[in-house]
């Protein structure tokens, strides 16, 4: 089973330090981990560092996999300028590093990724004609079609309506449970994090404030410290923790 662990991982742009010595426990396949923190906390940088797009001190330890590219990443930028159909743009993500010839299995994976996210009907559309939310789902399909063992998604629900947000997170939860995928997802909605994720990393200004089971990471004191909001967490009738934000401080 694939595992991911960060050991004193740092990153900097020029002289500006973005991440400072992030150390995490060993996350493993089947887990869904939320990456939390206010804007500019370093969430996207952490993803780029794990993917190897940024160099820096510390170690990103990925083990338990023999895949050449075990990690797939869905960035915030959903890039939709090219004259390509949705089907082509997902196939394109699948074919990177493979030959020019498309095999039936590649098409089957494209079909599967589109179906997982319920966007098969968009296949024939040009990506330039899509709404922001649709682009975000296509972008998720582009990550999914690579059949990763570790899937990282940078704010995948930011442009989605409520129905699509829940649907996407449900799909991700299922992928973690059924395919034993390790999923790291940056979220701004802490309610979603409490409901869908097993563990959470809370970042502020490049530092890891807390890391552990989601319900233990999201506490009123930390929300006050990091997000500057007064909030409380209560159990609903089904026993699930619910976040109630009272005011910005």
């Amino acid at each position, binding site marked *: 089973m694939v595992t991911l662990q960060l050991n004193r991982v740092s990153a900097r742009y020029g002289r500006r330090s973005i991440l400072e010595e992030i150390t995490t426990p060993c996350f493993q396949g089947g887990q869904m981990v939320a990456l939390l923190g206010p804007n500019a906390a370093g969430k996207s940088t952490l993803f780029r560092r794990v993917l190897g797009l940024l160099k820096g001190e510390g170690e990103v330890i990925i083990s338990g996999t023999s895949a050449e590219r075990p990690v797939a990443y869905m*960035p915030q930028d959903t890039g939709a300028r090219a004259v*390509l159909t949705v089907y082509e743009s997902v196939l394109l993500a699948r074919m990177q590093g*493979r030959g020019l010839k498309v095999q039936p299995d590649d098409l089957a994976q494209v079909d599967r990724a589109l*179906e997982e996210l319920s966007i098969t009907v968009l296949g024939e559309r040009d990506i330039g004609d899509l709404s922001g939310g649709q682009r975000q789902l296509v972008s998720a399909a582009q990550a999914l079609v690579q059949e990763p063992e570790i899937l990282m998604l940078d704010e995948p629900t930011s442009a989605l309506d409520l129905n699509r947000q829940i649907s996407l997170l449900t799909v991700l939860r299922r992928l973690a449970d059924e395919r034993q995928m390790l999923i790291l997802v940056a979220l701004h909605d802490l309610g979603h994090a409490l409901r869908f994720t097993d563990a959470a990393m809370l970042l502020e200004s490049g530092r890891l404030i807390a890391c552990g089971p989601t319900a233990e990471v999201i506490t009123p004191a930390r929300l006050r410290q990091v997000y500057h909001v007064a909030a409380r967490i209560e159990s609903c009738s089904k026993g699930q923790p619910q976040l109630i934000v009272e005011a910005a401080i």
Partner: protein
Amino acid sequence: MTTNTGVTETEVAETRMTETLSRGRAFYHSQVFRRQMILAGLVLALFFSLCVDLALGPARYSLGEVIAALFTPDSVSQQARVIVWEIRMPVALMALVVGASLSVAGAQMQTILSNPLASPFTLGISAGASFGAALGLAFGVAIIPAAIEFVVPINAFVMAMFTAFLIHALSLRRGVTVETIILLGIAMVFIFNSLMALIQFFASQEAVSAVVFWTMGSLTKATWPKFWIALSILALSMPLLARHGWALTAMRLGDAKAESMGVNPRALRLEVLVLVSLLAAISVAFVGTIGFIGLVGPHIARILLGEDQRFFLPGSALCGALILSVGSVISKIIIPGTIVPIGIITSLVGIPFFLFLVLNHKKASW
């Protein structure tokens, strides 16, 4: 749960899913087939245009005679054989190779810089070549010592490559974006145009005429050796570019997206810039400035075939070759008895056609 017809809901759902899946894939297959047909159509059009180009000139031949001269040379007169094979063929083939090279160069510049205005012309490569050629034509300056008949093309080539490498070197500096590269290119165009004006100011009237004629672009400078050199560069570049087909297509989604798919945009941009600069430099050095093809050939290919490089790359080459070949035909017939410089024709005839295509195209083409 079972429906009235005895089919379970799961079976219904599975059937629906299979239907939608096969519909998506069927659409993809039909799209691939349509594009293959378009490419085949372009090849046919190109062959037809080549034959017409070979048939036209002071001595006119019918298409039948040209085809006979091509495939059964012994069946036509020696005069026809010599005119078709020795005199017209290098010029006609040069039109195809230069058209394809400039169009591919423009296509990949537009791709890696994600800018619809990128072309050998707008990046200053053509202007650099013109300046090099003008140095040779006006003052006999040879940047690299060479036989007198090669001074102008070699000067043009060296200056074109110098411009390309200057832009590459500047683009490697920290914080330089693709927009900055385009701005650098435009700055190059203005610098070289000013230098050209300076040369023309000091040069003799005769030399000025030669410089002006050179900058108009003319296929009549084509010879077999020049053709083989240009073809070799094109034949070398195409597989190298095709090898990066998927990565190049991903570049059009933006650097962040391309990186997320495992592409290294900076390394790819550098490699492709070197290759396409070579393609553009060779073309401009041999036939002069033909600015229109590198900009428009790729746009027409994009409208016809989309941006999947498996089709866009050969499509750009074929569109560029076809535009220049048709331009060559028009340049021979527009004023009887005179071959008008091809650079003038491609712009005058090609741009209205291009505008017609862009304005009538229902979907966004960039």
